[in-house]
C-alpha cells in the first residue's frame, strides 16, 4: 500500500504555453509530473525524475516525481491535464463542479511506464 497524500492540481507556465500543443513532448514532460516536498520524496525513497504511481478510488496513473520546496508535506501537486484528471471523480455533489483538489490519494515508487497522451485516451475507449 502506498503513502496517503492529499492531491491537488493547477496551472503552470509551461502547461499554459502548451495548451494548444497538448500532443507535444513539451506538454508531456511538464504535465505528466507530480510535485512533492523534499522530505516526502525522501520518505518515499524516490529521486527527482523517478516514477511514482498515484491511486485514488477513481483511477491510477504513473507520472514523474519532481521536488518542489513550496509544496507542504503530505500534499502532492499534478499540473492540470489528462494525468491529474485520470484520478478525479466525476461526482459534483450536486454543484456541477468535480473535486479537482483535495482528493485522497496514495503514492508509491514504481517502475511502470508513464502513458503518453494518446495511450491514456485509449484507456477511455475500451
Amino acid at each position: 500500500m502506498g503513502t496517503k497524500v492529499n492531491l491537488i492540481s493547477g496551472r503552470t507556465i509551461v502547461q499554459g504555453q502548451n495548451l494548444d500543443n497538448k500532443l507535444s513532448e513539451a506538454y508531456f514532460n511538464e504535465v505528466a509530473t507530480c510535485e512533492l516536498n523534499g522530505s516526502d520524496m525522501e520518505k518515499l525513497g524516490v529521486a527527482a525524475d523517478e516514477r511514482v504511481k498515484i491511486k485514488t478510488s477513481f483511477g491510477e496513473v504513473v507520472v514523474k516525481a519532481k521536488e518542489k520546496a513550496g509544496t507542504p508535506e503530505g500534499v502532492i501537486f499534478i499540473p492540470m491535464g489528462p494525468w491529474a484528471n485520470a484520478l478525479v471523480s466525476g461526482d459534483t455533489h450536486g454543484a456541477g463542479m468535480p473535486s479537482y483538489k483535495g482528493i485522497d490519494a496514495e503514492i508509491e515508487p514504481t517502475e511502470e511506464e508513464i502513458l503518453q497522451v494518446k495511450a491514456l485516451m485509449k484507456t477511455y475507449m475500451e
Partner: protein
Amino acid sequence: MVEITDVVCSLCGCVCDDIVVEVEDNKVTKVKKGACAVGKSKLMGHGRIEEPAIRENGSLKACSYDDAIKKAAEILAAARRPLLYGWSSTVCEADKVGVELAEEIGAVIDNTASVCHGPSVLAIQDVGLPSCTLGEVKNRADLIIYWGANPAAAHANHMKRYSYISKGYWTEEGKKNKKLVVVDVRRTATAKMADVFLQIEQGKDYLVFSALRALLYGYEDVVPDEVGGISKKDLLETVKMMKESKFGITFFGMGVTHTRGRHNNIVNAIEMTRAAHTHTKFSIMPMRGHYNVAGINQVCTWETGFPFAVDLTRGYAWYNPGEVSATDLLIRRECDAALIIASDPGAHFPGESIRHLAKIPVIQIDPFANPTTEFADVVIPAAISGVEAEGNVYRMDNIPIRLRKLVDTEYIADEEIMKRILDEVRAIREKGGN
C-alpha cells in the same frame, strides 16, 4: 514586414490589449512586446489540425469542410439528448449561434465555467458581487489579495497590467505603496512576492474566510489561535492591512472553486468583502481562466436567462448545475452525442466523465489537435480567433474587447462553421418534417 500594434491576446482572462507583433509572409514572426510567455506562445502558433476529417473504422479520414459539416449536422439532428460544450476560447458571435443551435435541436448547452468558476457564478447568484473593473483596481487599489490563485503562472501579466505592480492615477508609485497578501496551499511564485503569505491547509478556505469576517466585525474573542493552519497573529495582521487600505481587492482562483465547499467558499469570500466595507472600499473578482469564458456567460445569459448548464430540451430554458452540467450529464451517461468547440474536455474533464464522452459520437471544432481529437468522430479545423479571425470577447471583469485579425487564413472561423451546421440541421429537420 508589418508591425501591428494594439494586438489583443486570446489566451487568458486578462485579455491584454497592448501587444505589438511583427507579421511577415502572412505569419506572426515576432512578438515584440506586451505578451507574457504564455500569450507569446499562443501568438507564435503551434501545429494545426490540417484538414476536416471524419472517423471511419477507427481512424480519421480527411474530407472537405462541406462533408464534415454535413456529417456533424446529421449527428446532431439524430441525437435525442445532445450536449453542446465549450465556447470559452472563441468569440461571442460564435457563441450566439451555438445557443441558437441548442434551441433548434433541443440540446443541453454548457461551457467551461462548469469546471472553473461555476461555483463563483452560483455564489454571485446567491449574494451578489461587490466588484469593479480592472481599470479601477489599477488606478485605486493599494491592497491586493490573491486567494487560491497563482497569477505568476496562470495570468502572468495580471500583476503588471492591473494590480500589484501596475502604476495608475492614484497609485503612481506602483508597488512601493501597495501591499500584497497571498493565500495558498503551496508557496507559489506569487506567494514569494507577498508581504504576507498565509499558507492555508488544503480545503480550509471557508474557515479562514469566516475568521477574517469575525475579525473585521470586531469579534476577536471568537477566533481561536489557529485557523486552517494560519496563526491568529497573521490573521490579525491581514485584517489590519485590510482596514488600513484605501481600496482593497480579493482576486480568487480555482484554489477556492475546486475545493471542498465550492460555491459556499465564494459566498463566504463575498461576505468577507462586505465585512471589509464597514472599514474601507473593498472589491472582489474571480480570476477567469479562458479569454472569453466571461463572454459565453454573458451571451448564454442574454439568450436563455442563465450563464451555463442550460437544458433546452424542454422547449424552454432549464438551469440546474449539478444536474445538467456537462460532467454530471456524462457521468449519468445521458447524452448521446456531443459538439465540443473551443475547449478540451479530453484533457480537463474527470476521467470518469471522459469514459462516456469517448463512446458517443463527438464533433470537435478547434484549431488544434488535443486529447479530445483522439476520440472525436468529426473534426472541423477552425481559424484561430485573435490571430486569424476577429470578434468580441469579455475580459475577466466583463469589459468587452474586440479581438483583431492579424493574418489571413484558409480556415473557416467558428461563427461561420456554426452557422453552416445550423443551416444543415434546419435543412435536415425540414426534410424530416419535424
